[in-house]
């Protein structure tokens, strides 16, 4: 039994890259099988013994990880063609050879490590927060109905992992499209009873300049790819409706009652 397990291996093909400017290349790895492994533990095994499938010494593969329970989004990569978190990518459920690639929509720093700072920049652009800072206590805000709170919780699950941007055909080097994640946050914060006080301002941020809401081409890959099953396309369509009204208000004027 134990000898049989020891002889079993996991085959991996990893798309690697030395630094942000160098060309990507493929390297094959063959590592001993253990039960209940995920892609992270396979990468740890390579780090422990950085030898490729040809038996040559190589550099350990670089990757990002943090929470290991699919709530932080840091370990996202393209696994067998699909962007997802490597912590919940179980080896036993993956077809071999397992192909690992970086999410190339983002700048690749090294191997599987990408720079997702544009996710944070987007959240800042759309003002994805509820501004309550001031010089005195404003007291408690209005209550949110329970049904709405449950709905909002689903949208708040976004961990800025970047999978929806990787899946989107309109987020690429030729376009400035902000992507679905930050757009859905506009809807979340506009639905918040206190956040709604800045609704028009947030809608304006996704109508202004290049790469805003209107860049969505409705391929709807985002909603299929999202690991948290956030209704991203519903958020986008709802924002389309809200910006339609907002654009009328901008053009014809508004008495600012809603």
């Amino acid at each position, binding site marked *: 039994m134990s000898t049989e397990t020891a002889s079993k291996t996991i085959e991996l093909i990893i798309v690697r890259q030395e630094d942000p400017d160098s060309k990507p290349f493929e390297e094959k790895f063959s590592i001993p099988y253990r039960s209940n492994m995920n892609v992270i533990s396979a990468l740890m095994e390579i780090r422990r013994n950085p030898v490729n499938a040809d038996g040559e010494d190589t550099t350990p593969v670089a990757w990002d990880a943090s929470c290991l329970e699919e709530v932080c989004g840091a370990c996202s990569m393209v696994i067998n*063609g*699909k962007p997802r978190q490597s912590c919940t990518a179980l080896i036993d459920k993956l077809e071999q050879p397992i192909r690992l690639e970086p999410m190339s929509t983002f700048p690749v720093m090294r191997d599987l490590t990408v720079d997702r700072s544009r996710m944070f920049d987007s959240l800042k652009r759309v003002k994805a927060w509820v501004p309550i800072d001031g010089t005195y206590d404003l007291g408690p805000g209005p209550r949110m109905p329970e049904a709405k709170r449950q709905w909002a919780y689903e949208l708040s699950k976004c961990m800025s992992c970047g999978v929806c941007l990787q*899946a989107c*055909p*309109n987020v*690429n*080097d*030729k*376009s400035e499209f902000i992507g679905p994640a930050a757009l859905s946050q506009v809807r979340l914060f506009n639905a918040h009873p206190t956040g709604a006080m800045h609704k028009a301002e947030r809608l*304006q941020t996704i*109508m*202004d*300049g*290049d*790469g*805003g*809401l*209107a*860049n969505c*081409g*409705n*391929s*709807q*890959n985002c909603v*299929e*790819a999202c690991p948290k099953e956030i*209704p991203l*396309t*519903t958020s*986008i*369509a*709802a*924002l*389309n*409706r*809200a*910006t*339609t009204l907002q*654009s009328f208000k*901008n053009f014809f004027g508004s008495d600012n009652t809603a």
Partner: protein
Amino acid sequence: MSSNREFLYRRLHSLLGVVAIGAFLVVHLTVNWFAVRGEQEYNQAAAFMESLPFRYALEIFIIFLPLIFHAVYGLYIAFQARNNTSRFSYFRNWMFRLQRISGVLVLIFVTWHVWETRIAAAFGAEVNFQMMEEIVANPIALIAYIIGITATTFHFANGLWSFAVTWGITVTPRSQQISTYVTAGVFLALTFVGIRSILAFVGV
């Protein structure tokens, strides 16, 4: 005013595609159907359309200007995408890709179609049943017409679907699903009308 030019262009692109060009397309396909009733009826209908009051104003503001804007901005949109249907072979992603492919096909088809009919008319040719009969007597031209008509009706029907999303008419997944069925029906109906009419010119 804020700099929301891109938002404006995108919305205008969507609006003109349905309200101006789409409406024109439906009228055009309807008038084509007269060919099924026979040569005389078709020529009468063509003459009626030619004699419409404000004809040049209608042509410029409902057809040519919207068409040129939609085509130029549409090309820009189409070539901005990096299609990924091989990795994400979902239905909507295929529709996204086909919308861009059909858009380019329609542009080529319409340019050729306008050249052969409208521009030829400007140089003195008469637009009538016989003109179309002569064009589609060439089987390659007939096939080109059938492909062109199908690409056009697809682009219009699928464009109706995304129009409803773009303007926030269909928000929920269910409404978008229903809209998929409705626009698929529009596609089938218009394709039937278009192809049946063109076949009338070869005597089918």
